[in-house]
């Protein structure tokens, strides 16, 4: 395993590589591509935290928990609440901030505040030729030159190895509460969540578990200053009365635990089968789930994100047909990954652009992704 201790060493290692290299952060996101292993775990440390500017800069291998702890001390947080894949994928290791950005890993609050890529202010990376490139910066507004930072974020290492990221952080929340409705069918739950997200009450989480213990459970999260949370919970429950009976839950620990579970797809932990992550427009979500014929389904992002547990080897994309969105195979055997492809195949014109970008940033084709 190559474990560079600095960006310069990492660049040198990429330049010196002859065959494919398999880049990893904490190794928590399941099977890694074949090739010589290269880890960013030697590049650690928060290099800047400026609370008044809502900015944090850290080296790629810095554990997410270290960043969250440092932010918590200043009553700040990563607002996109990155998912921890370990429970769902049965992996060990420690999630790193570089891995989070490289895979654009976001949690339930994504629909309100944006994804990991939306909080990215800039980054440094080493391309497939071993050239060190910086893009963006550490300030909130920056349109100087092309936005390569967003292109590299979410590229899963295909365009380069991220060595440092600058992120926008947000204030922590004083209080949180849940509004819960029981027994809604999927279509009714999505309609209720859409209605909630169309109010000015700043719902920061909207999820629906059709198979929850005791029957379907639809849950909406409200966060902020205590008087504001109380006001919005009450106003929202009244507004949503046509969509069901809503109970307000205010036990902070219970609310936090439930959203950690939603973030990490806890309902699927330990269940047999393949796991798919499907991004859709919410109004089509319930129909798509009906079409999928999955063993279990679970809705986040107000219906904009569907988690599906299917029989092993099931070709979900064939069942879903054409729709506005895409499906990622997150958990399956290597054979199924190879047969069905991890990422949604793109139309030909986009494939050409993707191929062109990969070839230009990695002409030797050594960045396995």
């Amino acid at each position, binding site marked *: 395993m190559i474990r560079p201790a600095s960006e310069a060493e990492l660049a040198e290692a990429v330049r010196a590589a002859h065959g494919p290299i398999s880049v990893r952060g904490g190794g928590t996101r399941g099977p890694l591509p074949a090739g010589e292993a290269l880890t960013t775990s030697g590049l650690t440390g928060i290099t800047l935290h400026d609370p008044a500017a809502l900015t944090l800069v850290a080296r790629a291998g810095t554990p997410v928990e270290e960043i969250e702890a440092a932010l918590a001390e200043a009553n700040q947080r990563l607002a996109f609440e990155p998912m921890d894949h370990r429970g769902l994928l049965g992996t060990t290791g420690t999630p790193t901030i570089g891995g989070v950005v490289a895979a654009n890993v976001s949690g339930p609050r994504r629909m309100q505040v*944006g994804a990991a*890529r939306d909080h990215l202010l800039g980054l440094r990376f080493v391309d497939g030729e071993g050239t060190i490139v910086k893009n963006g910066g550490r300030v909130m507004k920056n*349109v100087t030159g092309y936005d390569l*930072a967003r292109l590299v974020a979410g590229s899963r290492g295909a365009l380069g190895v991220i060595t440092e990221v600058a992120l926008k952080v947000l204030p922590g929340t004083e209080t949180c509460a849940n509004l819960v409705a029981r027994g809604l069918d999927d279509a009714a739950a999505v309609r209720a969540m859409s209605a909630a997200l169309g109010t000015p009450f700043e719902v920061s989480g909207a999820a629906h578990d059709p198979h929850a213990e005791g029957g379907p459970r639809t849950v909406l999260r409200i966060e902020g200053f205590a008087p504001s949370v109380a006001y919005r919970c009450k106003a929202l429950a009244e507004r949503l009365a046509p969509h069901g009976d809503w109970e307000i839950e205010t036990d902070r620990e219970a609310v936090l635990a439930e959203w950690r579970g939603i973030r990490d797809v806890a309902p699927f932990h330990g269940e047999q089968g393949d796991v798919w992550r499907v991004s859709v427009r919410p109004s089509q979500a319930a129909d798509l789930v009906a079409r999928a014929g999955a063993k279990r389904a679970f809705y986040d992002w107000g219906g904009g994100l569907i988690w599906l547990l299917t029989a092993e080897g099931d070709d979900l994309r064939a069942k879903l047909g054409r729709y506005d969105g895409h499906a*990622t195979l997150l958990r399956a055997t290597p054979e199924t990954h190879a047969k069905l492809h991890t990422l949604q195949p793109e139309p030909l014109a986009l494939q050409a*652009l993707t191929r062109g970008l990969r070839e*230009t940033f990695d002409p030797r084709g050594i960045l396995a992704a």
Partner: protein
Amino acid sequence: MQMPSPDAKIMAKKAQVVQRLTEVLGARGVIHDPAETRAYECDALTAYRCPPLCVVLPATTEEVSAALRVCHEENVPVVPRGSGTSLAGGALPTADSVILGVSRMNRVLEIDTDDRIIRVQTGRTNLSVTGAVEELGFFYAPDPSSQLACAIAGNIAMNSGGAHCLKYGVTTNNLLGVTMVQMDGTVIEIGGAHMDAGGLDLLGVICGSEGQLGVVTEATLRILPKPEGALPVMMGYDSAEAAGACVADIIKAGVLPVAIEYMDRPCIRACEAFAKAGYPDCEALLIVEVEGSADEISYQLDTILKIARDHDPVEIRAAQDSDEAARIWLGRKSAFGAMGQINDYMCLDGTIPVSALPEVLKRIGELSDQYGLGVANVFHAGDGNMHPLILFDANKEGDLEKCEEMGADILRLCVEVGGCLTGEHGVGVEKRDLMSVQFAREDLEAQMKVKDVFDPKWLLNPAKVFPLDVSEGRRA
């Protein structure tokens, strides 16, 4: 500022190019009479002008595709244009280029409040996107000051921001999908009404690429429910340090205002003379706006006012109703007009880390003395996006050049303290030759490689963003 000399071969075949474009667009879609092309000789950066070879105004994505295919075959550069409000010269033509304007494409294609999206043709103006969903209780968040006139096409090209991006983000955070025509006429769909990319985040790099990767003809935008209410509070301070510390403490306290605006004394005085908003005569004025229900607003304002008082303000005024709110905003919103009344000015757009504010203001003051040109500062303090206005006399020989030199020094200063050349206006031609201050050659090379992939012939807006000597050899 240099532009490449026009290609004589292209100039010589103007009639042929015009004829081929007319064949695919009809006579109505092509403007080639020099008396009429003159209307497209510049954008809002009026210091630089050059009429284009001709102008095309397609009405559909198919027509954009057909026009681009002709230009691609004829090897003619194309300069895409939204409403022509760029302050950076993003839509400045060269004499051998075709201006492709999207102004005829301004329809709303779909509104879905359940999915919280609107799909529009990109010639539509920013404010009219909000206009289309306002009665349904929604709005489109990015709000550049030119929002009455500027087009979504230009907003996407420049990744435009606005006063409210501390809370709502800029264009890239509110853009879900596009229909884009590549230079060779290929039409591609990226994203849609769903969130995030399934593969590479192409949308992310297209947004902010200044019309160099393709022509975006349709866009799916995120719309948000309108807040219940919003009110500003105004506070005056006797030093930039006190105002800067106040901003820092507000943010550190966990309050996230939707806007924090800052004006310095020259700007306050000009606005006061112009708009009579009742601003105190002080060194620094802050306007902080919060949103929510009446109770939520007063709770947040109480927190902010408590912090504000700790920094020894000259004056504090919290709006109690929408009339008082309008009066507080009046001066700020007329800042650019007010300055224009008393002087010619150049508006800069660098961003700095908020914590560097007092130091940067001090050094801008020193530069002002050194060059003998006045500066008024008005900017978005929450996100560090500065808008220093350098005052000069356009009729005085050498003043514009002096002003540009001083502007470059201020932008170098922004980069030096950890910021950037442009926060929301874009590079265009205006900041093109300063790109090497912020980026190493490898950084620019990586960006140009993306253009190589999308536009191998470098025909789309080729003389922008990258210093000419850096893009030499790539441009035709």
